[in-house]
């Protein structure tokens, strides 16, 4: 358990280092972004030393690291405000989107997985399989416009984009959740099928339990563990997928903040958002592992 936590710390350190060096070896110069390319040599030098860019790479890495430890992610080149403040403003929108998409995953994956496993190789199973295949093959940036076309333009039920109108969260959440729901559904189906073929399931039926009772009391608890692990992974994956989904729907979260920052070459802001998403992903994975260990003592050993 402790070594797992220690591993995570090392990985986090590696992630920070990777993101820092990406920014350090960038072909463009942050000074160009702030002063424009026609600024005089003296001005550039002054700004470089004020920003600490003239110091050796190792020194800069150390000061970036110690800044992060104190919650300081640097200052935006374009807006001259702390990166952490810019991210904090946008984070609630992304969390709302990711949370709703997580609900979409749960409400799609569980019923479909259950039905598919119960009707193995019959038409409900094939239908669920088709959903899984389509869900995995249709990328967010195409599913989003398709849903807008169907529900906003043709049917006129839901707003096209933005976050002000009521119901504006529905289409982004479905867009973000569907592909991950497809993977969870496949996993739950496979896991249930394996559990249902066990001897003790036959025993449960033989002692007089109905299909649903046996399923509810014996099969589901045992089939759930791999699915919980997967859901934990997907919670972090949602943050990654949110970037494209937010751009599709002009959703004002950290994903669209990242893409705007890339357009303006606001390197510290890019690094901040990328770090936040990657580190949340790593920490969520750790928490999922620990939870799985709590639920299944065999894993802890």
């Amino acid at each position: 358990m402790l070594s797992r936590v220690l591993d995570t710390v090392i990985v986090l350190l590696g992630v920070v280092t990777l993101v820092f060096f990406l920014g350090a070896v960038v072909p463009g110069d942050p000074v160009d972004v702030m002063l424009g390319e026609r600024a005089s040599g003296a001005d550039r030098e002054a700004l470089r030393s004020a920003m600490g860019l003239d110091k050796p790479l190792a020194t800069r890495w150390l000061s970036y690291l110690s800044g992060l430890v104190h919650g300081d992610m640097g200052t935006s080149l374009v807006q001259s405000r702390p990166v952490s403040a810019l991210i904090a403003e946008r984070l609630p929108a992304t969390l709302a989107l990711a949370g709703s998409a997580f609900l979409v995953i749960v409400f799609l994956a569980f019923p479909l997985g259950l039905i598919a496993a119960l009707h193995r190789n019959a038409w409900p199973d094939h239908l669920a399989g088709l959903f899984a295949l389509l869900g995995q093959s249709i990328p967010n940036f195409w599913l989003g416009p398709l849903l807008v076309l169907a529900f906003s333009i043709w049917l006129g039920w839901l707003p096209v984009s933005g976050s002000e109108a009521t119901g504006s969260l529905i289409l982004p959440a479905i867009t973000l959740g569907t592909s991950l729901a497809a993977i969870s559904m496949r996993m739950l189906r496979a896991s249930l099928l394996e559990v249902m073929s066990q001897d003790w399931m036959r025993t449960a039926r033989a002692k007089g339990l109905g299909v649903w009772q046996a399923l509810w009391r014996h099969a589901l608890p045992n089939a759930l563990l791999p699915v919980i692990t997967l859901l934990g992974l997907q919670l972090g994956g949602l943050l990654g997928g949110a970037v494209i989904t937010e751009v599709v729907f002009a959703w004002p979260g950290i994903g669209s903040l990242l893409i705007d920052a890339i357009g303006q070459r606001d390197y510290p802001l890019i690094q901040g958002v990328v770090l936040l998403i990657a580190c949340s992903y790593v920490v969520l994975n750790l928490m999922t592992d620990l939870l799985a260990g709590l639920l299944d003592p065999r894993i802890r050993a």
Partner: protein
Amino acid sequence: MSRLPVTLLAAWLLIALAGQVLPLTPNEIDLEQLFAPPFSAARPLGGDELGRSLLDRLFTGAGISLLVAGVSVSVSATIGTALGLLAGYLGGAVDRVVSRLIEIFLAFPGLLLAIALAAFLGPGIGNVVLALSVMGWVGYARLARNQVLSLRHRDHVLAAVALGRGPVAIMRLHLLPLLLAPLLVEASYGVASAVIAEAGLSFLGLGVQPPQASWGSMIREGVRYLLVAPHLVLAPGIALSLVVLAANRLGDGLRDRLDSRLSRTYA
């Protein structure tokens, strides 16, 4: 295994190659054909917001996605397999370093690493290939390492060691051939994700630059005209999804075949 995935992928290959040979005019602006509906003589799939031929742009986009997927999958499979082989067979410090690297690269969910790389490298097709290769090697490395860990104590490997074969020869002659089948499965899924990733980066404006056509940039430009001309988004999206679907199905089919062969041979 059904023939459909193979047929679809062959069609993709053929269309991409045809795009190099046929006299296409994907960037020819013709205001007469502005938002021309599909099935007209001059614009068989319709015209876009500048009257450019959607069909010609679709062909060009097939070439871009094939080029990016082909190169990035080859590069990342080669590098990943080599690193995974070394880590799995040599163990020790090499394995620790490679395993840590794998964990660090796995910390970036979805397209995040590719987006970050493209952000710092700048747009352009070469940088997209670079970004996808840097992102993609991990899967192959993990697969190769895990396979080698279970293969290295097989009798034929031990026999080769006893006969005095060097580690390079053992990896190349006695381990690599056994890795090829699972790597092929991984590579078909890899093609699917590379095609999505290239289109995704181009959709975000971080990939292929205008006026060059890519399926992703076509969707990006078409989204603004969803109300008047939905075919601008539908056509490239259908092409994209068919290729991804076919590559995913091919991976599933190959995996099933491999599984049944494995169970027949070793059970």
